[in-house]
Each structure stands twice: as structure tokens, then as C-alpha cells.
């Protein structure tokens, strides 16, 4: 199977949520979303972002929007006004996750090509 960055088959939006951040991964097509529901596990996200997030990762699915919503528990260096980090609000965490390399079936890739 071809290896591509997650950005090939998904978009993302992220922001702060208390001392953590949320990353919404949006499938670029229905087949891409269905594939990601199986492949993009909370543990895969936790490992990919292990130097950004130091807490648990939870996932909520919204099939109607083709969104997998990941909550990163401890990813903002304390969060809010207590954080000293440049990205104290997790604005860039979506793009960080989209850099993940994945093995993606050809039919899924075909479903997102224009």
C-alpha cells in the first residue's frame, strides 16, 4: 500500500480546550473517513504527538460531518495564561497531526483525487 501523509486524505482544525487541545480530523471523502475510523486510533495519535502531548488521547466520532475529534489532555504547557509556549492554544496541532505518514489503500487514495 502507498505511504502518504495524513493530509492527503484529511483536513484538520485545532484549538485549546483547558490544559489540552482538540484536533478535529476531517475526512476528505466518505471512504477516507471510514478508513480513518479504523486506522487513526487514539494510540496512533498519542505516539505521533508524544513530544507535544503528555496526557491521554480520547476520540469522539461525528459521522455526519466526517470528523474524528481527538482530545489531547496535556498539550499546552499548562494552558491558558500559565503556558510559556509559543503555541499556547494548540492552533498548530492540527497541522502537526496531518504530517503523520500512513499506509493508505489505493481505493481510498482514488476517492480523494480530483
Amino acid at each position: 500500500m502507498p505511504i502518504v501523509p495524513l493530509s492527503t486524505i484529511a483536513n484538520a482544525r485545532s484549538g485549546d480546550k483547558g490544559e489540552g487541545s482538540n484536533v478535529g480530523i476531517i475526512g476528505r471523502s466518505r471512504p477516507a473517513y471510514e478508513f480513518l475510523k479504523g486506522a487513526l486510533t487514539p494510540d496512533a495519535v498519542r505516539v505521533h504527538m508524544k513530544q507535544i502531548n503528555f496526557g491521554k488521547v480520547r476520540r469522539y466520532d461525528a459521522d455526519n460531518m466526517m470528523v474524528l475529534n481527538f482530545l489531547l489532555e496535556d498539550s499546552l504547557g499548562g494552558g491558558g495564561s500559565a503556558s510559556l509556549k509559543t503555541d499556547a492554544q494548540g492552533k498548530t496541532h492540527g497541522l502537526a497531526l496531518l504530517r503523520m505518514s500512513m499506509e493508505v489503500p489505493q481505493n481510498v487514495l482514488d476517492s480523494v483525487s480530483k
Partner: protein
Amino acid sequence: MSDSKKVLIANGQGFWGDSILGPVRLVNEGPLDYLTLDYLAEVTMSIMQKLKSRRPEMGYATDFVKLIDRVLPQLVEKNIKVVANAGGVNPHACKDAVMAVIEKHGFKGIKVAVVEGDDILDQLDDLMAKGEDMKNMDTGEPLSTVRDTVTSANVYLGAFPIAEALDQGAQIVITGRGTDPGLVIGPMIHEFGWKADEYDKIAAGTVAGHIVECGAQCTGGNYTDWRNVPDMARIGYPIIEASADGSFVVTKHEGTGGMVTVSSVTHQLAYEMGDPANYITPDGIADFTSFNMEQEGPNRVRVSGVKGAPPTPTYKVSMSYHDGWKSVGQLTVSGPDALEKAELCAQIVWQRLAFDGFDYDASERMVEFVGANVCHEGIELEGAGEPAEIVLRMGVKGSDQEKIERFGPELVPLVTSGPPGVTGFAGGRPKATEIIGYWPALLRKELIKTSVSVFCS
């Protein structure tokens, strides 16, 4: 009321600091019934309480008054109503300033309403005496652990007081803390006569409010495929075309930049989302997994079928408290060997502070080499080579103000007593600033009294 009635509700301000061009263009570039404006973040309330304690006529979003001064003639001419949480912790002072602007322009008979009841800072001890422990929703600790350092306490009010103000004929509604979507739901309740138990409709308003609450973030701002976004400089701010049955269309004025697509709207729906099936507001619970979206035309996304559920018996309270001090500064280090020299600079700063008796442990200090993958730390980048320059960003935090203050003066001397090529110190010495802690809690609704008062020019 006919079923085909459409009401146009825009949001022109996603946060305090958003461009004034958003609302100015919304009132000028196309049809509009309501302009909503969101000025408040958690930290804002604490800053406003501090301003008010120094000067009793301050403590609200002064940007709002400047905006009204700029667009009032168009608001009056087109009969556009404004709903803004610009009141902060001093909504009557905000109202007085707005009234003064209206007088200056010479308009008579304009009604301005104030919604209040959200500010409970003066009632905290009473509430605690009544047995409300206002436990931190994240940690479970009782409020008593930080009570002495609390600097602001506000309830997130719902949309019904806003609707009541509009029912009384207000053209401008000024609130303190409320939910962000409430600014949009209030006009819908007023226009369509929705009842408190019409949970699906309230939930639909909540979804609409969430889509527009960050301004241009649903019209192509902060969008993954940024190359596909046309004319970002003149990006259009979002407008909800609302219907009585709760269905709505997300759109923007014709001729503006940006785009409204299912994808751009979905991006914003995913923003700051928790459990999408349980989006809780004081007016009801919205299920963000329930609805359908469809592109019904260029820059028009229809949302329908939103499901809701009854509200919880509690309000969310947002409190802030003093949580220590911090100081952050930065210098630029040019190449050759930018990263290696920046690393040396950081070591020098910590060592010099230690010579002087100030040691900061790992939890108290921070170093970033901006330009060498700070944002995506630990994630391998393709084609990343030696950076031509690095922004060295360092900071400290802790409870001892003197120790935090001591850090700043050791950063700038690197320019003359460190490796070569260190520059960019125009900002001067970093100073210690207060860390404002955030304390979310729940409070039974029957303990809170809201009120609406209307004033006429």
C-alpha cells in the same frame, strides 16, 4: 409570521482583537438584520475587573464604542440591530459610553439594553456560605482553596435575556458574560417566538452560533487547503440566514473574499469541540452528530435536522484567580551555526542567573528555538535543513515575583557578551506579568437572577 421569513444574523468579531473591518464591512456591503460581536475570553474578564478596580468607569470592551461611533449612521439607516457581550464586568459603563456616542450623532429614540446578572464576584462568599462549594470541574478541588486570590467570577448566561431585551425594542443589546452562541440564538428566539422547551430549535441556534462565533474561521480563515481560498485580504465574515423551523444557511455577502463550503463550515464545527453529541449550553444540549449539511449554491451551506435535549439544572461559572508570575522574552540569532549558538545562549542565561543565586527547575523554565520545529516538536520533517536564523525564546514562571523578575535583565546582555550574530532586542527587557488561573465550576440556576434594563436616547 410567515414560514418563509428569513432573518440575517452575522458575527463580525470573533474575539477581542479581531479586525474592525469585519463588522464595518458587514453593515456596508450587503443586507443584514443583526450584527453580533464577541469580545470576551476567560482571561479578559479578569483583566477587565482589574481595570475597573483602578477606574470605576472602565471594565468593558472599549473597541465596541469605537465601532458604534463608526457605523451608527448605517445601523440606524438600515435598522440593523446589534448584540454584543462588550459589557464585560461593567455593562452600564459601556452603555453610558454608547449613549454618549448616540447623543453625539444626534439620534433620538434609540433604545439600548443592558443584560446583567452574570457577574457574581461580590456574591461568592454568600454562595459559599449557602453550601455551594463550586468545585473545579477539571480537578475537583473546592473553591475555598483559591478563594482569596479570585479576581473575577462570571456565569455563562443563556440567550433568553437577550431575546427579552429585543422584545422590548432595543436596537443595541449589551451583555456581560454569556455563551457565545447565545448572541445568535437571542435574535432567533425574538424573531420566531421560540419557546424554552423547543429544544431542537434552540440546538439549531447553538450550531449556527458555534459556526459563526469565531468570525472568518468558517469562511476560509485558518483553512487547511489555504491555496484554494480566494481573496483572503477581503475575506467575508459569516452570516446565518435563519428560518423559523430551525434550519439555516451559512453564507456571506456577495463580492467578498473567502468561501463558504461544507468543508470550510466543518472546519469551524470541529473547533474547540469536546464530545460532539453533548454540546451543553444553559438553554439546552445540542447534538452535533445529528444534522445534515448540503452545499445548496455557491457560498451557501444549508444545515438542517439538528436535534437537541433539555438543559442541565446548572450554569457554568468561569472564575479567574492569581496563579503566580511569568516572564518571557526573545532574541534573534543569525547563522552561520544559528541553532548551535542559540543553544549556547540559553545555557549562558541559566548559568549567569545561577551565579547570582537564582536557579529555575525544569517545571519553571522554558526554552524554544523558533525556526527549528518548535510547533511540531518530535515530528520528522521532510527536507528540513540547517535554519538560516533562529528566534531564541526563553521564559520562566513561578510564585516568587522577585525570582521571576530577575530573569528578564539577563537576556539582552547576550548581544554583547554571547556568541556573534545576536540581535532583535528592540522590545527591551522582559518583565514579570501575572499568571491568571482559570477555575470552571457549576452553580444551580435558581441561585442566579438575571435582569434586563432598557434606556432610550
